[in-house]
Structure formats: C-alpha cells, structure tokens
C-alpha cells in the first residue's frame, strides 16, 4: 500500500501541470497528493482511505467519508488542510461538507471470502509421498464410465503387488485418472504407514534422471526409486520421447516388478498406441491390468456435481444441478469449473441461485458441439495410420490403405450418420454397396479384433 502510494504520488506530481482538472475524481486525487505531504503517513492512511468527492455544488465540495468517526475527525482536525489544498487547485471552492457514504466501489480483495487457514492445510501436498490428500476414494464418484478402473484400484489395495501389477489407467484429460491413482496412494499411506509410497509425474522422473546424470549421482537415483513399495507415475506417455529416461524406467520397472512392489501408472491413451514406446515396455504394461476411464454419462455427471457441491457445503436446487450436468458435457474438470463459477456467485449474492441465474452464469461454459467435416475425419484417420491422405481417395487395394478407408467409412456412418451413397461419393466415387460392406466388416471385426477396437476408440477420442 505504502509503496503504491509513493509511486502514485510521484507519477501524479509529474502529471499535474499538464492536465486540466475536469473531473471531481482528478480534483480529489490531486488534493490528496498535497495532503499526503503535510500529514503523517499513519494519519493519512487511516483517515483518507475510502474518501471521495460526491459532488461540487456552487463552490461547496461534498466529500464522501466512510464513517462518522472519519467525518468527525476530518472536520475537526483536517478541515483547514483539506480546504486549503482544494483551494490551491481550484479558486472557486469555498467550503467542504462531509457526508457519510459508502465508497462507490469496494476493492476486489474485499469481495473475496478470506481463505480459511484450516482448509489450506488440508490441501497441502504430503511432502514425503508427494500425494495430495484431497484425492481420496471417499470423494471419488463411481459410475459406469469408471467402475472398472475403480474396481481394479480396489483390487490393488486389497492385494498390492499381486492382483494387478502394474495397473495402468488411461483416458482423456480431466476424467479423474490422477484422482484415482493418488487415491490408491493415499489409502496406502493411511492404512500401512510403514510402507513407502511415492507419487510423481513422468516429467518429474525425467528431470530427476537428467539432474542425477549431470551431478554424477546415478547410484543415488537408482537407490531412491528402488526403495518404494508403491510407485505411482502419472502421464507415462511422455516417457516415449525420452530415450535414456525410458531405459532407466525400464530397469526400475523390472526391479520393482520382480520384487513384487506395486506399480500404478496413468496415461492419456492405451500403451499400445503410444508412439515411440518400445515393445518391451508395452508388453510389460500389458502384463498387468489396463483399464480405461471414459467420459461420464449424464447420471454420473449429476452425481459428480452433487458430491462436489456437498464438499463445498453448497446447496443448489435440483433443477440447477440437472442443468449443469446436461450443459457441461464430458470433462469432469470443466464441470468443476462451472460449479465453482456458481459457488463464487452464490457467495457474492448470498442467496440461492435459480435456474435462470445458472443459465446466465454458465453461458458459454458448455463446450460447443464440434462440427467435423469429412475431410477432417479423413485427415485425422490417415494421420493416425501414418498414410498419405490422398491415397484414401485413390482406387488402390493395398492392404495398408484398405483398412483405414474402411474405418473412415464406418466412422462417417456410425458417428456422423452420413448416408451410404454420399459416403461412397466422398471416398472417390465408390458404389454404396462397397460402403455397406466396409461398415459391416468393421462392425464385425471390432468384436473379434481387439486391436481394431482400440484403434477405433482412440480415433473417436481424437475426433471429439
């Protein structure tokens, strides 16, 4: 505050001679500059805070002050100084009247609820394990979209190192992967405090590796990670790009796995589909349990919003909850963001929010339905299979082209409901029976060929 004032005073002194005083705001600001010099800082800060000129009537300045204390004290103690400094700036001023009025605006800081210290401590990350206690099973909402992942996590807790080792959870961003894997860690930390748990991201692992190579502490690095009974690594897909780190990870993996230590990973896609990841690592991931978390369905979203609202001790009418769950689709993180918007507004207004309020507040919160053109679908899928986009439209029957082309037709039909003849037309003038055949084939194969199933799943995520 003081620093701000001095800075502000300096800039003002420079500006004053050049500006014409047009507004009462400027008049008062300039008067304050003068007053601040003649009055001690504590006095100035205490008594002149939140003062402002309400209006100037016929040479009488009506000065708004925050309380009767201020009014009495300013008028008895500082009246002369105030009048003097205002007169210096404008000859027409004859007198000053003091009026108690709340300031025109309150500082933003004051509008925010003060952070409760107890809450901050709860949020603090547990230093030894790097786990955030906020992520627990009790706050994890289970629905059809994640019940398999949740069940696997429970199995890991029951028999760590034996049931599913490693456990890998994959799915798009913001659906609770980190929450789930940290919840495993937190459960461990509480139930078996003597066992060592550690949570980190693959990026942190890589950084740690690089810095230990630089400082020649490789041995220390190896020992550090080999001591854990439960190692949780987030976002392992990033390892793919880092050659040396990947190798170290491979050795660490083998060591921990051989000594029956539980490993838990998360990734944004199925390990088999991570590019640049060696087969030896992929196969090791596959040796354990790989589960996916998909986007929550409507009922689950509703349950999530309810749980989060209760966590914040925040009561919302059912219709608002329903609206929230139906507009903000997909990502749980976005859902939480939308709920926070409502929460802040609720606290500021101090009354229950109606459906109409929520609609206004959440305008633009729901992610707009993406319009995808046929070209984009073709390009995405061609990129996915690593083939040239143009070859799709050509009349070639090479195997590596035929499969992607069939998948494109299938996706266009199933997800975008385009008619068979028009798909055939767009695919370089093919007959509609060819398209029907392709779609049927993919539909059949998906059931028997799990790799194809994963590919289609992955493509759908990319197109979302």
């Amino acid at each position: 505050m003081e620093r701000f004032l001095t800075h502000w005073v300096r800039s003002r002194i420079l500006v004053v001679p050049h500006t014409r005083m047009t507004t009462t705001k400027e008049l008062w600001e300039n008067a304050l500059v003068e007053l601040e010099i003649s009055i001690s800082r504590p006095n100035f800060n205490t008594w002149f805070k939140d003062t402002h000129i309400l209006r100037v009537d016929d040479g009488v300045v009506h000065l708004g002050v925050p309380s009767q204390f201020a009014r009495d004290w300013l008028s008895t103690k500082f009246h002369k100084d105030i009048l003097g400094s205002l007169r210096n700036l404008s000859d027409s001023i004859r007198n000053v009247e003091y009026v108690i009025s709340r300031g025109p605006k309150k500082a933003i800081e004051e509008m925010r609820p003060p952070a409760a210290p107890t809450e901050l401590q709860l949020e603090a990350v547990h230093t030894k394990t790097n786990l955030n206690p906020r992520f627990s099973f009790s706050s994890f909402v289970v629905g059809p979209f994640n019940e398999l992942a949740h069940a696997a996590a429970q199995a890991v807790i029951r028999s760590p190192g034996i049931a599913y080792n490693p456990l890998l959870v994959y799915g798009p961003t913001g659906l609770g992967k980190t929450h789930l894997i940290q919840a495993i860690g937190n459960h461990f930390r509480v139930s078996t405090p003597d066992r060592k748990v550690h949570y980190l991201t693959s990026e942190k692992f890589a950084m740690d590796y690089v810095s230990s190579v630089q400082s020649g502490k490789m041995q220390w690095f190896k020992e550090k990670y080999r001591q854990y009974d439960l190692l949780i690594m987030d976002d392992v897909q990033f390892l793919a790009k880092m050659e040396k780190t990947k190798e170290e990870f491979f050795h660490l993996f083998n060591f921990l796995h051989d000594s029956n230590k539980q490993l838990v990973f998360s990734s944004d896609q199925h390990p088999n589909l991570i590019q640049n990841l060696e087969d030896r690592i992929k196969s090791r991931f596959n040796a354990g349990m790989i589960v996916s978390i998909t986007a929550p369905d409507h009922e689950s979203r509703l349950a999530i919003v309810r749980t989060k609202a209760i966590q914040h001790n925040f009561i919302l009418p059912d219709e608002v909850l329903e609206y929230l769950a139906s507009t903000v689709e997909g990502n749980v993180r976005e859902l939480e963001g939308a709920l926070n918007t409502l929460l802040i507004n609720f606290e500021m207004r101090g009354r229950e929010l109606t459906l109409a309020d929520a609609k206004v507040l959440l305008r633009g919160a729901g992610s707009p339905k993406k319009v995808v053109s046929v070209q984009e679908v073709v390009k995405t899928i061609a990129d996915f299979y690593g083939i040239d986009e143009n070859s799709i439209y050509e009349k070639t029957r090479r195997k590596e082209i035929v499969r992607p082309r069939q998948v494109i037709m299938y996706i266009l039909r199933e997800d975008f409901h385009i008619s068979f003849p028009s798909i055939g037309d767009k695919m370089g003038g093919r007959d509609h029976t060819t398209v029907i055949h392709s779609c049927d084939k993919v539909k059949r194969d998906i059931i028997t060929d799990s790799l194809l199933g994963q590919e289609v799943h992955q493509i759908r995520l990319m197109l979302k």
Partner: protein
Amino acid sequence: MKFNCNTQEFSTAVATVVRFIERRANLPVLSSILVTADGGRVVLHATNLECGVEISIPAKVNEKGTVAIPGSILAGFLSNARGKTTSVTLVGEMCKLETERSTASIKTIPHEDFPALPRVSATASFSIKSADFVKLLRSVMYSTSTSTIKPELQSVLVYGEGGKIISAATDSFRLAEKTIALRSGGNVPQLLIPSRNVAELVRILEVVGGETVLYYNENQISTQVGNVYYTSRIIDGAFPNYKQIIPKTFTTEAIVLREDVAQALKSLSIFSDKFSQVSLTFEPSKKSILLSSRNPDVGEQTTTIQATISGEMATMNFNSRYLSDSLQSIVGDSVRLQTNGPGKPLLVRDSSDESFLYLAMPMNR
C-alpha cells in the same frame, strides 16, 4: 498529570476498555487507551473506529492531563496488580504506575492523534431494560454470517414497531428472530449493528444492569449506562425482507421436550459427518421423531424422542449445530417444530412463548 484511584476499579475499567483497541492499526495511537484526568474523575477511551467506549471512574486528581498508554501493556500490568490504590504519574513521556507492591513505567504514545468518539444527538432514542436488551441480542446473535462479503448479514438487525422491539439475524442458512415488548418509545427504524460490536455491547450491558437508553442516527448507535459510554457504527445496507420466507401453514407439526432434543443432538454429534448432518424423521403414527447421524469413518446412531405430532410423515436432514444453536434461546420446557416436508425449512419455536422464532434450512442431500 497525576492521580490516585482504586486499583480494582481501575483494573476492571481498563479490562473492559482494552477490548476496543485496534491491535494492528495503521494509526499507532489506536492501540492505546486514552486516559484523561480532570475534576475528580479519570476517563478511559478506546476505539477501533468500528466501535468505541468511554468509562469514567472516580479518582483523586492532583494534576490534570491526558495521556495515551499502549492498551495491552496497561491491561496486562493491572490484571496482576495487587493493593488498594494505584497512583499514576506522567514523567516526561513515561507513565509511572505505582501500587503498594509494584511500580511500572510505560512508554506513552503521542495522544494528539487520538480521535474523538462520535456523539449521537439525543433526538432519536429508545429505552429498554438492560437485561431485556441483552436477551434480545443474545437470542439471535449466533445466527449472523461470518463471511465479510455481505456486511448486512454480519450484523444483528434491531427495529421497533407497535410497542415492540425486534431483533433478527441470518447467515442465509438459518434465521433467528426475537421480540420483546417496549414500555416507551415505539418506532425504531432498522438498525444494523455489526455482530462483533454487538458482542461487546452485550458484555457491557450484562455487567451494568438497570435501564438503558439507546440513541441512534443513520450512522451510529450509542448508549450511556452508568459510567460507560458505548458507540458503534451502523451498517449502511438493507437487511433481507425475511418476513416473507417464514411459512404460515405447515404439513407436519410436532411438540417435543427441549431437553430431549438437546440431549439427542449432543449425542448424535459424536457420529455426525464433517457437515454435522443429522436426519430427522417425523413419524406421526408412532408419535415420535427418529433422529440419526452417520459417519462412514466412525459409525452411526439413531435416537427416538417422544413427540406430540400431527400431519404427514417427513424425513429431513440438517446441520445439527444449526438445530442445537436455536435451543439456547428457548427457555420453556417444550419446543414446537413445524415444517412442510423435505426441502422446506423447519420452524423452531418455544411452544408456550411466541416471542422467539428460528428457521433452519435443510441440507440438500
């Protein structure tokens, strides 16, 4: 400045006044107590610019004068002082305090910057028994909001109409209202007194007793009781129009013993979760209310209390503290609970006394 006074009186007065000092003030003089000795009396002042107090005590003044002494130091010394009389002398900028057994010298603060306490002209006022006013404020003050976002909810509302004085407070989850008949004065406009200042006023009035006259204008409320002058800022804001949310008709109504409910809630709180949730089931057919609480980490409990009950069966969840808070304001033996079922508020009253009313919102789960 030099005076002698009774240690006990001096110490008690300082202990009251020191609660009004501003400890983290921009203006250092606000952390002090202003002591003025003149004409057979010593007057102590303190203010945090939100509220202020002035207490005068008799003293033998040898030399009149004014001094500002750091409040917490003065209070700390006097709370441990023994002996009958204390003599206070100003030597340079040091204030010397002497009792029979100990002496202390406290560095003073320049007193010129100490603000005058606002005075409220005697035009608008009402008079009430101190004990009644304490009851009026105490009955509702626990319901004020603790959030600083809405100053009007962080205050106790006091207003008078039709020969009655009414207080109300709400934090938007529950509401308390108390009415007391007024012998003189009638119409008092809505006065919003900040809850922190209300607590101090209550502590002062509890001690002095007798009759108190409260003077007010649109910015300030003040009172002179015995040797104490108290003044507080009034919040410039509009209290929500709470009358309209109080339901008039009910689908379920029960009368229970106050002691039963208090005991049940106390016991249930052991098992309640972090939201202090308790569930109430009104069972007209069994003539009882079933209360239960459950915490997945601890266990669960159910309790049945006998009730005279009419209307429909209903199950509702509440924050148990919101329910137990209301009981402190009910003096009678039995409590009337009225509601319109799940999602609707619960009205709590003394079954034989209409002067207190409490409304609690259920939890939405």
